[in-house]
């Protein structure tokens, strides 16, 4: 029975041995991109921007190692964005004269492709829920990847477009509702794809993609009714490097909460179907309650962690811009309410060991609080965060 230890695989290889050649290649590439970016634009960056660049490189390298699909994804998206930027040159007008930019590679075209593929992905996933075959959900997954890629490409190209519109305007495209909705849709899709790849539960997409499709619908409505895609200069209050980290961090939070809420919906449906129609095909297709609960927890955990960081960053920014780290501005207050909502959820789970429908309902209600914090405050309440007005 005794086996030589060499044959067992319990020895954890050292951290460097676990990084495979392709990881090294990817890390080298991200560092190279960072160095080139600094060499090209270093003269326009202050020390905070430089710190942000280093952080972005480190983060991308780490995510690439932690979740390998990110490597190919980021390379393709980056290459497409660079191609678009290269096609633009110094002339914004090429956006409408160049074939590629006009139909695929510009910020605006990218958003349209993102919308199309995220809608298609939603349809495919929902089809997959009612189908015995795995094929539709695999197609849904592929479309979701393309949609997220188009979204990130659109943001990167738009970044350049803002500078081309007027060199004095330049800012990262996370400054208005239009831009953050692109970020929300693409980022939430990517987060979902991570959970799908880790758990293999493809039918979760039928629920999660619904909320993403809803956000895309809002984005399109907002774009067409308000001409939101037209680049405008930044209001002075937003002209700060804090925005670069505060806003994306926030949307990791919102994305996590949105995914958790939709899995809560799946959980409740599964819970009901198990009682009413335990043998139906649809009941079998929805992932197990344990699996849903587990991913729901993970989505809330990552959302909560990042939302906490975002709120603290927001407080630090507020201290610099408005003269107080906490002034009970409606947005701040609703952030606190949202934070308390999920803090209570986590306490119930950790200390009382709560699981089941109540927690699922809580996660769903949490999404309403999230939505109000994100949009409702700007729509119904006045305050200092008024730049996102509807």
């Amino acid at each position, binding site marked *: *029975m*005794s*086996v030589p*230890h060499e*044959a*067992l*695989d*319990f*020895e*954890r*290889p050292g951290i460097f041995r*676990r990084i495979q050649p392709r990881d090294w290649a990817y890390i080298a590439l991200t560092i190279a991109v960072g160095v080139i970016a600094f060499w090209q634009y270093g003269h326009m960056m202050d020390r905070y921007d430089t710190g942000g660049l280093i952080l972005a490189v480190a983060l991308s390298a780490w995510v690439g190692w*932690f979740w390998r699909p990110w490597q190919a994804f980021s390379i393709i998206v980056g290459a497409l964005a660079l191609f678009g930027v290269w096609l633009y040159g110094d002339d914004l007008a090429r956006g409408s004269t160049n074939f590629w930019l006009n139909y695929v590679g510009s910020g605006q075209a990218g958003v349209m492709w993102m919308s199309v593929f995220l809608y298609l992905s939603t349809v495919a996933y929902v089809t997959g829920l009612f189908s015995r075959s795995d094929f539709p959900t695999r197609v849904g997954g592929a479309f979701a990847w393309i949609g997220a890629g188009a979204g990130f490409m659109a943001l990167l190209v738009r970044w350049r477009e803002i500078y081309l519109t*007027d060199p*004095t*305007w330049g800012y990262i495209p996370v400054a208005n509702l239009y831009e953050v909705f692109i970020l929300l849709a693409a980022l939430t899709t990517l987060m979902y794809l991570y959970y799908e790849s*880790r758990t293999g539960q493809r039918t979760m997409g039928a629920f999660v993609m619904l909320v993403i499709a809803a956000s895309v619908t809002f984005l399109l409505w907002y774009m067409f009714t308000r*001409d939101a895609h037209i680049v*405008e*200069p*930044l*209001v*002075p*209050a937003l*002209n*700060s490097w804090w925005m670069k980290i505060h806003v994306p961090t926030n949307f990791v939070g919102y994305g996590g909460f949105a995914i958790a809420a939709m899995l809560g919906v799946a959980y409740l449906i599964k819970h009901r179907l198990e009682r009413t129609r335990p043998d139906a095909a649809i009941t079998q297709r929805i992932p197990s309650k344990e*699996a849903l609960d*587990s991913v729901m927890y993970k989505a809330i*955990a990552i959302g*909560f*962690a990042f939302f*906490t*960081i975002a709120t*603290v960053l927001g*407080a*630090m920014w507020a*201290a*610099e*811009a*408005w*003269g*107080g*780290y*906490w002034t*009970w501005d*409606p947005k701040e*207050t*609703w952030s*606190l*309410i949202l934070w*308390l909502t999920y*803090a*209570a959820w986590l*306490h119930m789970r*950790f*200390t*009382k*060991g709560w699981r089941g429908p109540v927690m699922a309902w809580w996660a769903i209600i949490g999404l309403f609080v999230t939505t109000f914090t994100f949009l409702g*405050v700007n729509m119904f*309440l006045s305050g200092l965060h008024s730049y996102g007005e509807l």
Partner: protein
Amino acid sequence: MSNNDQTAAAGAPPASRPKAARQPRRSRIIVDFMGSMSLAITLLVALAIASVIGTVLVQNEPYIEYLMDYGPFWHEIFAGMGLYQVYSATWFLLVVAFLVISTSFCVYRQTPGLLKDLRRYNTQVKEKSLRAFNSSATAELDQSQDEFLKHAHRVLKAQGFRAREKTHDGHTVIAAMRGRWNRMGYLLTHVGIVVICVGALADGTTLLKINEWLGNLEIETRSVPVSEVPRSAWVPAWNPSFRGSVEIPEGASANVVFLPMREGYFVQELPFRIELEEFRIERFSTGAESSYESDLIIHDPNRDEPLRHTISVNHPLIYNGYAIYQASFADGGTRLDIDAIPLGAEALRELEVPGRVFQEMEVPTPDGDTRIIEFINFRLENVIQLLDEDGVRENRHMGPSFDFRLMDRTGHGLYYRNYQRPALQEGAMYFLSGVRESPADEFHYLFLPADADDSLERFRTYLAMLHNADVRNAIARQVARDDDTVPDEQNQAIATTTAELMGLFARGGYMAVHEEIERRVPPERLDAMRDLMIRILHAGLQGLYMEVLQDEGVVSIQEEEQRFLEDTISAINAISLYQSPFFFHLKDFEHREASGLQIARAPGQSTVYTGSVMLIVGIFLLFYVSYQRLWIMARRREDGTGTHVVMAGTSNRHQVEFEDRFAHLKRWIIDQKPVDANNSGSTHQSNNKND
């Protein structure tokens, strides 16, 4: 906030948990209650609800507005409950204080057990309790006990466990744990919250409120100059924490800030004087503001020479612990040189009005009455965005404007906004004046047509002549005479009517004309007569216009002249609704701005940031470090042929993942086989799958 996740997650508690004493001491009951999860959740909910109230009910408005919105009954109740300043209301602070105390008790109660968890490996476990764990396995191995234990230690070490071993009466227990930092996560999050709240309390208004309660301070509710505020509302400079604001006009200085408090304010002294040299608004090419900047000079008796510094939004000045922010801007009392142009017979004789923003003055009207003009605001630039036919945005620079209110002796009147320069509107130039009943309404605009020199000269001439009865009569006679369709014997009658209609129109616009027609004409003939009358009126107005043009030396009437007449008629018609005897035309101005500074002293800020960092680090430790405990019990079999092994484990998070992990550990330690010969990567992947 009891933290019994250990027991909640595991199937059975570790044997060493102290049993509750039969008769708990009273202090223990208080500790248990204050640190209980139910109380904490109740307080969290209370805090959330209070916060919602604070966002739904707009905070810190003037009390008079609340009184108008909610009526005296509810106003009393709301004010009494402190709902207008929820976040500084005593009851709200009490909820926060209770939450802090509850969290502190929770930490106090949990820390000993937590430290014990970290230090004690608990090698005293019984086989029975190990078997009761959710994740548990037993096996009979042929291996000798020593050989097995050696192997187990190797696996545990390689898998990152710290282990202790103890042998007593024939059996050996290995107790191992991993991810101890997870337990620190609990401490860091909860202590972090307490630290944040303590820091925030230090920066709040508590000290002021206590002094107010002690009678040392009394709020000022009147808007009076600083010099008239009684000393009882003055806060001395040593006050360690405050946040207030002050508006300083260009060229002026201030050594106080105003701290808003309920329906009034305190005056906070500063140990230095801030002078505003200049305030600037930088703009993008679109006209949108790109930056607000103030050039400040700090005069401090402790400095040899004054400190010059420019602040802007997002770039405050931190001076000796006082943070000075660019918060707002306003007019600082711009001087306005204004011509009051009478909208009547005296239209050509303007009255010079030397005004200043925020001042009031009396203006005598041509009819011997008096109006009071109050200058409210001045704006140097007005940019409006328009979409042209192609959907391309166009920015139109409208130039300077000033806002004022014109009142009669009883204080009633409308609000106006006049632009200095004529603006292009559908191909022609107009002087614009907006009028509205209250600042909450939209403006309705009066369009006065500008002539070729961009002046009001022609319009004023026309208006003055229209108001002159002699001119009207002369014009009317001429028009009637020139009209070939009118029989000569009716000339006189037509001329009289024309003059009358013109007079009516001058005084009251079409409205007055229509009323007169309706008064005179029987209903059945009204439609026919109205058309005729309006035609007669227009002929008169046209005739008058010809006269004006003739005086100017214009001989032929082009399209633009015709349009000018139509605009003039529209404008005169609108004057009756405009409700001002004058058009106030801005000739010149001397711009003076004021910068709104927010000045804060927040000694608790670094404490709050420290607490925030603790909180964030703690959250990541809690979520992403998994605290796992493992026990392995090995006993030589009775017959001496091998080893009896019991293995059990528990984790406080991720039960699903832990079961996988336990299966792996069991396979390595007990089965002594590889988990997956083909894919050695899967083992460390499972370790990474924590989020």
